[in-house]
């Protein structure tokens, strides 16, 4: 079993930012990611980012990925990348069990940064396993990463930013988005994203959901219906739409399984997307030397994930005994960035979630 210094699990925006801080401080870093290409979800994010210049606002996700990866280049001699590698086990003595191309191996880490991100939630409805029903992020991967058109006519379910953005990207790919339905009474993502698809002719329907998918071997039609105040379908309001694809975009859940396996304290916080690790202000979990950042500690935008990653990286480097240049000022600046990213009306849920988490810590 090989000994490693800092092991980062997940090479998305949080993981890559943590890596940069650790490498700058002088640490040896191992990044593990199950995909071939680094970047997590950035690989398919062809839209321009929000935020401020510090989080590369107005750059596209795919271009931010290049900036983040280039930022690691000067430190290649201390950086090991284990791509196409899945972490299948994580133990209290910081042993990380990995599988790469059917080869099983273990490494032992001095510190671990969990930046595993999140997975998409599904929705229960009749025939929800028919071919043609996708998570919206999966459709984004098919289109933007692999250049595969998912279908010709789409129903989008969910009006969060992912649903709105993927609808726009489907239109860009020449796919007809027949309608976007949302169970809540108001659009949940940024209104600018909603306006972008509405003016291109996408029907946006509030308090409406999918009742069932119809089709023999694949989706041929969907039945949608209106919902009442307590989110129950209203009989008699059913409408049938001809679509061959349904995109489900109803939220994300933090990928906390490995943290549970290692025995870190985990809480269910609805506002943060599900089970999240209890972390302190230094992004350290209840297990010393194990840090967590990005969507795994609560569902937010990639801009917040980058800031959290940088902070987790600085604290991990400090705890490994490295001197982080200008540490307290850097952390203060990052704190300030995060404060502003979380201070708008769209971040109310996230703020409530972290308040709950802090109360219990």
């Amino acid at each position, binding site marked *: 079993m090989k000994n490693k210094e800092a092991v980062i699990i997940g090479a998305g925006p949080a993981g890559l930012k943590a890596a940069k801080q650790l490498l700058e401080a002088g640490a040896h870093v191992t990044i593990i990611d199950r995909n071939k290409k680094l970047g997590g979800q950035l690989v398919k994010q*062809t*839209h*321009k*980012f*929000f*935020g*401020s*210049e510090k989080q590369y*606002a*107005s750059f*596209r996700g795919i271009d931010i990925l290049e900036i983040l990866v280039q930022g690691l280049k000067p430190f290649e001699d201390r950086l090991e990348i284990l791509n196409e590698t899945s972490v299948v086990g994580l133990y209290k003595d910081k042993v990380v069990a990995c599988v790469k191309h059917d080869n099983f191996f273990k490494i032992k880490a001095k510190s671990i940064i969990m930046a595993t991100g999140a997975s998409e939630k599904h929705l229960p409805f009749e025939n929800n396993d028919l071919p043609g029903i996708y998570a919206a992020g999966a459709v984004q991967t098919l289109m933007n990463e692999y250049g595969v058109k998912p279908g*010709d*006519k789409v129903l989008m379910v969910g009006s969060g930013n992912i649903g709105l953005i993927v609808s726009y990207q489907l*239109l*860009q790919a*020449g*796919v*007809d988005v027949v309608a976007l339905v949302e169970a809540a*009474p*108001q*659009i949940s993502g*940024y*209104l*600018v*994203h*909603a*306006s*972008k*698809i*509405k*003016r*291109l*002719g*996408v029907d*946006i329907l*509030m308090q409406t959901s999918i009742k069932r998918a119809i089709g023999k071997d694949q989706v041929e039609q969907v039945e949608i219906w209106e919902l009442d105040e307590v989110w129950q379908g209203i009989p008699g309001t059913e409408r049938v739409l001809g679509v061959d694809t349904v995109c489900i975009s109803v939220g994300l859940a933090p990928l906390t399984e490995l943290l549970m396996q290692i025995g870190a304290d985990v809480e269910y916080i609805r506002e943060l997307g599900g089970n999240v690790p209890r972390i302190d202000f230094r992004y350290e979990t209840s297990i010393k030397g194990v840090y967590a950042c990005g969507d795994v500690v609560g569902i937010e*935008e990639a*801009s917040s994930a980058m800031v959290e990653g940088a902070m987790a990286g600085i604290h991990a480097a400090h705890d490994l005994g490295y001197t982080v240049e200008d540490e307290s000022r850097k952390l203060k600046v990052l704190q300030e960035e995060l404060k*502003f*990213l*979380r*201070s*708008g*009306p*769209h*971040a109310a849920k996230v703020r409530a979630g972290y308040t709950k988490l802090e109360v219990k810590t």
Partner: protein
Amino acid sequence: MIEKDGVAPLEMVMKEFPDDKEVLINPKAIIECYKEIPCNPCETSCPFDAIHVGEDINARPKIDFDKCTGCGICVYNCPGLAISVRQLQGDKAILKIPYEFVPRPEKGSLVNVVNRNGDVITEGSVKRVQEGKNQKQTCLLHVEIHRDFIYDAITIEVPRGS
């Protein structure tokens, strides 16, 4: 209602225009960012210091029409595609809108112009397709329409399900 369908009603839109319509004899950026989101590239990209967001990047941008030259740099940089440049020229109006579809319409071609609801309201003529220097993939379409549509027009129709 904008929170339900993404469509800003006209009275909301009008508030983002200069009070005096004659100001639009020169091109001006019209910012349609109706809800606070953490974002400020409009402010940081403006070479003329005409857009103010401030330290709290959730604040809605404010534009100073005296300083705005209608250059269109903020239009390229707005991640929400929420800015357009509008100018009155006699009985015509020129719109500079962000466009992220391919193929680009050809210069001189006639296009269907839509309102915020996605309805075709008039025909426009493409005067210029201006590709960005720093903002690849987003271009600025210069579309000429009748001046009557200066408030209602928002973008051009794109083919559906091609």
